[in-house]
């Protein structure tokens, strides 16, 4: 079976090499087909592996070679496929393949078409390394690889300086988190003497409790950076500078869930680390609420979805903090479906609008973009949690677990509030984009068209998945078999949380349907009947302005972190570097020159003087020798 891991890993790498090296000489269609096929091959391998684990197969280890061997450090280039990594593989390659297909239709007029596919393939390769790595160091290799691809793809249209800055911002903020992850790996290595998953997990009990807490907190810092949680979430909305397929693949479906994967992978540690788990819970909850409130007042179609992603990632971290690791993975899966769908739908809208992203200038698109509209509607219903679509089951499960897993119901209430906010901003987005009157220019109106089949087919596939995806984790009300948790139970160390009573489930379902109906009605009234168009962020006042300016997070970071760093840098430059260091350097140069100038005088050329000096020297040697 190991060969399937190797094929799955290296197929995108070969695709990257071909498209990257020869893409510019090949026709665009061929490049696109090569790029997509390489991912399809990985997907087929993933299905084979998935079948293996579905039948209760044992984890497969693939060891390629020894990588680092120095002193007592011994790190293998090894890969481990177990049910968790194969589950992630399915999402990455499956959604990745659809997005590759979509990109063929989305990017055909771009000069960097071949480069785009090369980066996408490299991303898939790195992401597979991340989830298939057999030890923490290999995982870190993939972790950095996806960070690099994210940087390259955010700054894909590098001629625009703003996009370049967004790419740098993402890269630097990720570095902050990576530092935590790296330290966590160091502590782990120091404690266990190895970073190999299987060895570390089997000997997890030998470490003392404090060390485990420390490892978990440090690993979580890494997850905060990659998965855009407070306080490092501000890069993700800016990352929307990249092409839309990139936003769908990297910044919604796969890369940002790497943090979830990391925590779930280390679940044996987190399960026994109460402080770290509480931290995960609190950070996730805060992020979910803050991001959802910001999304209420965004006018850029992709920004709304970006904040929605941050908020949903917060949901996943709440589940992780509760110890319900398989629930988090469940939400990762459904979220990958409907958020990729929503992003690709928004891409289709942007494509039709000729690059316009502001929903204030959209409206009434449902008439022209029928498939996009219908699939987007399904995505919206799925994310807001309308039963029986995918989002309902996963979000409902997180809320149920928070209700039964904790003593107080405050977390449950806040999550419910966030779910309500989610519905409000999603329907606001939906109505403003697809209904009412068209608010763009006449040119745009004439240009409106449905996207080509390469774009609409992935939309339809994802829409179907968003509808039926909940089937992998039906609640006990509908089914006795919870597929995903039994599939992952060997790897994840879920905390025991009592089953929800059927009455509770029923009440939650009915209440959520009622509330959603009210929200749909209210948003329809506000944005369609009354024709309220959101103000631009400059015209907002009071609390609305605070929300539309994202709680001034960027401004606060600028004032608190960037300004002091700039001040320290300019001080270092003007004083430490220019005065102190340069001073020492020129002092040594000047003193040599000073002594040279003066010692030059004793070289008179007069032989007697030399002799005299020699005699005096010898005499003084003798005298000193005598004295000593």
């Amino acid at each position, binding site marked *: 079976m190991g060969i399937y891991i190797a094929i799955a890993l290296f197929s995108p790498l070969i695709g990257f090499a071909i498209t990257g090296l020869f893409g510019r000489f090949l026709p665009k269609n061929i490049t696109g087909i090569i790029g997509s096929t390489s991912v399809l091959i990985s997907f087929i391998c993933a299905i084979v592996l998935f079948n293996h684990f579905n039948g209760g197969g044992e984890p497969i280890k693939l060891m390629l070679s020894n990588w680092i061997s120095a002193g007592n450090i011994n790190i293998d280039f090894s890969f481990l496929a177990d049910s968790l990594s194969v589950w992630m593989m399915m999402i990455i390659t499956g959604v990745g393949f659809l997005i590759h297909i979509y990109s063929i239709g989305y990017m055909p007029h771009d000069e960097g078409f071949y480069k785009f596919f090369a980066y996408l393939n490299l991303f898939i390769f790195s992401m597979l390394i991340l989830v298939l790595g057999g030890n923490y160091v290999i995982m870190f290799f993939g972790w950095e690889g996806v960070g690099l691809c994210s940087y390259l793809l955010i700054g894909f249209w590098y001629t625009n300086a703003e996009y370049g800055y967004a790419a740098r911002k993402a890269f630097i903020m990720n570095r902050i988190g990576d530092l935590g992850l790296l330290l966590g790996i160091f502590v782990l290595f120091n404690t266990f003497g190895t970073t190999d998953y299987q060895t570390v997990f089997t000997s997890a009990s030998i470490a003392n409790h404090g060390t485990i807490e420390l490892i978990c907190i440090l690993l979580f810092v890494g997850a905060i950076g990659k998965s855009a949680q407070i306080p490092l979430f501000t890069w993700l909305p800016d990352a929307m500078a990249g092409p839309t397929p990139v936003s769908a693949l990297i910044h919604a479906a796969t890369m940002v869930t790497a943090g979830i994967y990391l925590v779930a992978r280390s679940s044996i540690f987190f399960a026994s680390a109460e402080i770290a788990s509480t931290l995960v819970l609190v950070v996730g909850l805060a992020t979910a609420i803050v991001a959802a409130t910001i999304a209420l007042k965004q006018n850029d179609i992709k920004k709304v979805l970006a904040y929605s992603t941050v908020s949903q990632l917060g949901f996943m971290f709440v589940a992780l903090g509760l110890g319900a690791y398989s629930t988090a993975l469940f939400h990762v899966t459904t979220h990958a479906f409907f958020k990729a769908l929503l992003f690709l739908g928004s891409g289709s809208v942007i494509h039709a609008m000729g690059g316009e992203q502001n929903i204030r200038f959209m409206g009434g698109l449902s008439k022209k973009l029928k498939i996009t509209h219908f699939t987007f509607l399904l995505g919206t219903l799925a994310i807001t949690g309308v039963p029986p679509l995918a989002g309902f089951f996963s979000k409902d499960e997180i809320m149920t677990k928070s209700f039964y897993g904790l003593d107080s119901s405050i977390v449950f209430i806040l999550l419910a509030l966030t779910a309500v906010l989610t519905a409000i901003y999603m329907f606001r987005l939906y109505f403003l984009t697809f209904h009412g009157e068209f608010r763009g220019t006449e040119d745009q109106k004439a240009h409106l068209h449905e996207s080509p089949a390469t774009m609409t087919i992935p939309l339809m596939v994802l829409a179907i998945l968003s509808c039926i995806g909940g089937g992998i984790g039906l609640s006990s009300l509908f089914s006795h078999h919870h597929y995903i948790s039994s599939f992952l139970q060997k790897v994840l160390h879920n905390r025991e949380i009592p089953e929800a009573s059927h009455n509770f489930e029923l009440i939650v379902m009915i209440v959520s349907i009622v509330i959603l109906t009210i929200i749909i009605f209210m948003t329809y009234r506000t944005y369609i009947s009354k024709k309220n168009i959101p103000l631009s962020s400059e015209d907002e006042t009071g609390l609305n302005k605070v929300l539309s300016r994202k709680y001034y997070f960027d401004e606060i970071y600028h004032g608190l972190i960037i300004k002091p760093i700039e001040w320290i840098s300019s001080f270092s430059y003007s004083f430490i570097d220019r005065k102190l260091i340069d001073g020492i350097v020129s002092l040594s140069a000047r003193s040599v020159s000073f002594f040279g100038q003066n010692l030059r005088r004793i*070289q*008179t*050329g*007069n*032989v*007697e003087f030399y*002799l*005299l000096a020699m*005699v005096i020297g010898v005499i003084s040697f003798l005298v000193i020798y005598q004295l000593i």
Partner: protein
Amino acid sequence: MNSYLPPIEHYLWLSAILFCIGVAGVLIRRNGIVLLMCVELMLNAVNLLFTAYSTYFQDSAGQVFVFFIMVVAAAEVAVGLAILVMIYRNTKSVDISLLDKLKN
């Protein structure tokens, strides 16, 4: 044989005085020939010391050394005088204070 042997200190003093005269001559005089003579004086002061100690310790090695020094001194004077001749041909003088070309 009933000969009187002066004590070793006398030889030491004589040798030291001769050596100092030699050094002083080298430092003070400018005539190249005198300079060479002063160098000879220093060498001979050392020779005297060698023979004195050789007798004192009843060890002939010191006297062997003296022969070596004499040979070296003869060779040195031969080279030194040759140089002086060349200097004289070039500067019409044996005053070594004229030799200050090293300065530049």
